[in-house]
């Protein structure tokens, strides 16, 4: 069992809620039942599989998870205590190198916090048995357990939690200090829950702290050849308040110059250093990480080839290569596929510019780069390393180029599963505009929860201006 396998999540939600008068799993948080909110946070963090342990009032609670890809286990012994739920969950973790245990009453836990626990675990030697968030030296929850401790978790007494192992394994605990205690707050009582709800920041209050912006383009700035409302005012606001910005797109086929030109036609003057597409980000990534004379086999359009040649990489005809880089290619043939497959099977690193499986043409949705990646993954059993959203590299490169930091950089996008999810994973504030792909209905159904939702750039700009000027 490889430690590269994904880390699992276990959402402990079997307890009764005598103090709440209703199952606390169903209390409302951000318009959703609390238990669904936490399952969504675990999903957005990339934890897999996600197991939810239900006990008290399981019949009433289970339906709210029906549309989420989680595994629900029922603990009939829930009344004996938390330990019985932990022990039960371990029985289904055999393929996971570690698992994060979440409590249902911690609404402020974020995908970014969960990802940080996992990366601390992965990058520490000797491998920690436990990674626990701390505030002022006190260990909090959620807690990651390495599989070395699964046997002990499986034998927990029913009336204690996983924390019972802390004492015996003090030397195996890696503390992860958080910078905001609210992340770890738990709502044991209705009073505390009410308090947390009131503490729940007015999301728009974060706007004045924003120093930089990463925005998607199509569906946010324009649609087709028409500017969307608020375009000009938005750039005026950025200019007036000295906010840096990066316009990013998963599209690897249109050059940076194309976007600068397009904006010019829409009356916005910008420069190439404010635009980043997934081809450029792929070039940056390889320039930073490939060895000096790495050879690359490109399955992609001329734009991608040019970006890589420009950075000094030797492009091959596909008979040898250290890297196979795949972007959208409308002339993708069986021959290309075979060459890429053989190279990846021989150990070449498999990189994809963007994960978009399809994109819209007037006649409907047609295959995108993600479809080519899926095809090669099927042929090679190797998952690609993807540069574009929602994977982190594109946003990270944008942040680095601006010398910004993720906490004060606002992501603006119209797509939940790429623009917004990418931001949430990196701990960035996110603003959804409804002028593009996803509707408000999509937002309510989705496991991806943007911090802010606006009709369009115009209403975002107006809200932002108000906040900045009424400080």
């Amino acid at each position, binding site marked *: 069992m490889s430690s590269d396998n994904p880390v699992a999540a276990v959402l402990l939600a079997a307890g009764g809620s005598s103090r709440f008068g209703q199952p606390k799993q169903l209390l409302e948080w951000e318009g959703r039942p609390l238990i669904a909110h936490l399952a969504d946070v675990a999903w957005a963090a990339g934890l897999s599989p996600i197991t939810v342990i239900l006990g008290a009032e399981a019949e009433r609670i289970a339906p709210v998870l029906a549309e989420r890809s989680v595994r629900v286990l029922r603990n009939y012994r829930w009344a004996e205590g938390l330990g019985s739920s932990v022990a039960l969950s371990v029985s289904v973790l055999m393929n996971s190198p570690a698992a994060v245990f979440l409590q249902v009453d911690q609404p402020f836990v974020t995908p970014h916090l969960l990802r*940080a626990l996992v*990366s*601390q675990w992965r*990058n*520490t*030697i*000797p491998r*920690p048995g436990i990674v626990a968030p*701390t505030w002022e030296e006190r260990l909090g929850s959620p807690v990651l357990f390495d599989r070395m401790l699964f046997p002990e978790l499986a034998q927990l007494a029913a009336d204690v939690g996983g924390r019972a192992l802390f004492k015996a394994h003090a*030397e195996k605990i*890696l*503390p*992860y*200090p958080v*910078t905001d205690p609210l992340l770890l707050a738990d709502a044991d009582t209705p009073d505390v829950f009410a308090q947390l709800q009131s503490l729940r920041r007015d999301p728009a209050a974060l706007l004045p702290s924003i120093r930089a912006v990463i925005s998607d383009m199509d569906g946010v700035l324009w649609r087709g050849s028409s500017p969307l409302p608020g375009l000009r005012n938005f750039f005026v606001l950025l200019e007036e308040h000295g906010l840096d910005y990066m316009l990013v797109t998963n599209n690897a086929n249109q050059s940076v110059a194309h976007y600068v030109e397009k904006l010019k036609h829409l009356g916005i003057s910008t420069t190439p250093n404010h635009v980043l597409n997934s081809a450029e980000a792929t070039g940056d*990534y390889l*320039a*930073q*990480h490939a*060895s*000096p*004379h790495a050879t690359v086999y490109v399955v992609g359009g001329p734009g991608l080839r040019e970006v890589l040649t420009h950075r000094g990489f030797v492009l091959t005809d596909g008979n040898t290569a250290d890297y196979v880089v795949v972007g959208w290619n409308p002339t993708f043939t069986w021959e290309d596929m075979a060459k890429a497959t053989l190279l990846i099977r021989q150990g070449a690193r498999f990189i994809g510019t963007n994960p978009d499986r399809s994109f819209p043409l007037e006649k409907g949705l047609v295959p995108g780069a993600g479809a080519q990646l899926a095809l090669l993954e099927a042929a090679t059993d190797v998952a690609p390393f993807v540069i574009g959203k929602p994977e*982190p*590299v594109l946003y*990270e490169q944008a*942040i*680095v180029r601006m010398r910004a930091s*993720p906490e004060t950089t606002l992501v603006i996008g119209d797509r939940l599963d790429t623009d917004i999810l990418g931001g949430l994973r*990196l701990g960035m504030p996110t603003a959804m505009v409804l002028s593009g792909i996803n509707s408000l209905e999509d937002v309510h159904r989705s496991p991806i929860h943007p911090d802010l939702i606006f009709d369009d750039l115009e209403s975002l700009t107006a809200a932002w201006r108000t906040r900045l000027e009424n400080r």
Partner: protein
Amino acid sequence: MTEKPNLYDWDLPELETQLAAWGQPSYRARQIWEWLYQRLVTDFDAMSSLPKSLREQLAAHTTLAMPTVLSRQESLDGETRKDLLALADGEQVEVVLMHYIERHSACLSTQVGCAMSCAFCATGQMGFVRQLSSGEIVAQALHLQRELLTRAESLSNIVLMGMGEPLLNYDATLTAIRKLVHPRGFGMGQRRITLSTVGIAPGIRRLAEESLQINLAISLHAATDALRQQLMPVNRKYPLDALFSAVHAYLQATNRRVTFEWVLIHELNDTVEQAEALAARLSGLLAHVNLIPLNPTAGFAGRPSSQERIAAFTEILERRHIAHTVRLRRGGDISAGCGQLRRRVQQA
């Protein structure tokens, strides 16, 4: 030092030449080599496949200089052990054995003392005494291996990271490495050996041309010249630009990943600026960073970075996709950091 040469100092051709001079057939050299480095005997009489006359001749003209153990410390968890060894002339070096999940790693010294004076290093605080010969370097590994073999175990990795700067004892170090990897000698896989340097740029360039598959680790500890020369005086002689130009040459010649060691010292080199500068330096390099919270030594006021600062530092490397590992302290309770045991014994 004794007058007679130490047999462990000779490489195979030297041994063959000597035996030829004594009128011995050429296979004798390989037999002796096997007794020394595979069967690990410590006296000539045990070399039972050699004629008695040859054994006597060897004993008359050479010695088998094995170090003796002066003191030994074991960590509470039993995973790390440190021996203070006395050499033939009474000088002392340390050798550390680390056990970790079926791996046994030896940390060997290459000099008595060290001239590099790194601020946080106990060996650096003691100054340079003398070079070790190749035989004295190899003998440290033999000492540990002999003991492991009695438990049907053997060394799985060797790091030249103990006392001393290996690239300032270049020839002896390289001869020792070639003995350790010699298929008829110790037979350690090249990729299981790591040479650790403070960044002697010409030595790195020379190493690049050796056609070896060993690993190179560079003690970096700071990514700006101002801070690095404060911690490591060698940075005045080989500033970061010179060091990294040698690293580029090394990578071009070998295409082998270089490890950068970074001891995390609280509020000194664990800042956002240092993390960003480190990421910028390593951009485009086949590199891995080992982050090691400081092992406090007497004589240096620094403390290990707090968990908060380690988390913030690693978050920056994570965001820049710089491969890194935090190495939590092992053997801290026995001051396994090199040079610490020798100091303690001398002070006692």
